[in-house]
């Protein structure tokens, strides 16, 4: 509110951007976590450069 920049549209834009960023960050972090868990379940450990499927 300091210099009149925080009007209706600005508050709506900032809050919706924060909600979208939070929601999508939660989704993608969850996807990474489940992928790592799946790899650990399949191969015992999660290693980028020691995949037993690559000979």
């Amino acid at each position: 509110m300091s210099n009149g920049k925080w009007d209706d549209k600005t508050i709506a834009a900032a809050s919706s951007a924060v909600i979208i960023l939070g929601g999508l960050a939660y989704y993608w972090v969850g996807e990474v976590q489940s992928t790592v868990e799946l790899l650990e379940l399949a191969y015992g450990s999660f290693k980028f450069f020691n995949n037993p499927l690559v000979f």
Partner: protein
Amino acid sequence: MVSNILNNYRSVVGLAVVLLVVLLIELFEVRAAIYPVLFPFFEWLKYSSWIGYLGTTYGSVYATVQAGHLISMAVIGGAVLVTDLRLLGVLLKDIPSETITEGTHKCFKYSLIVAIATGIFCAAGVADKVYYMPVFWVKMLALLAGSCFMFFIKQPLLNSRPHEEIEPWTMRLLAVASILVWFTVAATGRWIGFS
């Protein structure tokens, strides 16, 4: 007092109402109740509608429409990246951001119409498959959120005044949220393709 708030903070009140509706939908498990009801529609879309028939019978038609879908998604991605990277001060700094946002938004609007029209055709051909994919619903949600964000939040703010009068951190937040939401639409789209 209430009418004063409604008049002065119309967008904020609208956003609060949308959030309340989403909260109620989740709280009363409306989404879970609607999901099984949608299945007959997806079955009809694939087996009984003419677009489902065309998509499943003629591979060349499906491939051509899908190419249109991919091109329109590429144009959306380009429009979003040019606009948002300009708002972040990364690209095209010698051109006023008002000029860029105005030009790219027209391109975005038409590409979105093409992407939705071709997307319905593409989904119809594999409707019984995508119905069971959580990632398909994530894409639909991201598409809905991204479109509403673009038409009801981002563009009204960017068109309301010269960009130098907009709070800089709000502009950066808008740009990053917009890039991430359209990245999600594209990534989940490819995920559907590879599932």
